[in-house]
């Protein structure tokens, strides 16, 4: 069974998020399925980018908390920021292409996760994805 537990606190800055994503990619190398590795890195990237840019306004004095846990064939990620949050998910009613053109990653997170929810008035995003554990016992 594949188990992974990964947590980090970073400043709300693009370079810090990129460095964390590189560590996530290394950690995910243990997964047997390429699609799962790609999907989970993408989910982490989008959640971190939202927290750093939209949640924290690229204010490096604010912190972003990141967690990724894999156990029992389920990957769960949680990213929290210290921003103002939002009341309405900023995706409703707009076409995916229009959202992507403006770099909105929530539409990607919905497609690549099995469950996606926001907590704490939008300051925390939680995603889950079932993963293929291959033939490992």
């Amino acid at each position: 069974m594949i188990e992974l537990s990964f947590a980090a606190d970073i400043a709300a800055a693009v370079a810090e998020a990129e460095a964390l994503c590189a560590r996530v990619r290394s950690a995910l190398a243990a997964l047997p399925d390429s699609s799962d590795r790609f999907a989970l890195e993408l989910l982490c990237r989008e959640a971190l980018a939202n927290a750093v840019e939209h949640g924290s306004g690229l204010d490096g004095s604010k912190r972003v908390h990141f967690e990724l846990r894999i156990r029992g064939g389920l990957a769960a990620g949680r990213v929290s920021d210290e921003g103002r949050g939002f009341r309405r998910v900023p995706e409703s009613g707009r076409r995916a292409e229009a959202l992507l053109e403006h770099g909105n990653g929530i539409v990607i997170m919905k497609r690549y996760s099995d469950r996606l929810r926001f907590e704490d008035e939008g300051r925390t995003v939680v995603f889950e994805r079932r993963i293929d554990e291959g033939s490992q016992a």
Partner: protein
Amino acid sequence: MNENPSYRPGRDIVVATVDAMKAELKELIASSTGNLTVDMSGVEMIDSKGLGLLIAASNTLGASARKLRIVGAVPDIVELFRVMRLDRHFEID
């Protein structure tokens, strides 16, 4: 003027790299004619900002009846293009 140019980022197209690539693409599109080929070999990851860059480039090209063609993308990225229905925007080889 460069005809049917090609662009090879050679690294991930993500929030940390997209601004530099945006400037390079803008200059390449402005100084060329014909269709643009983006060679994705060496690109392991593209995020929403990267997809946004390619959509914007495709729209800019489309305004003068030019097209964006993607070559050399790994299967996971081709699948991302399909999932997000971007294969309607780009020709993907």
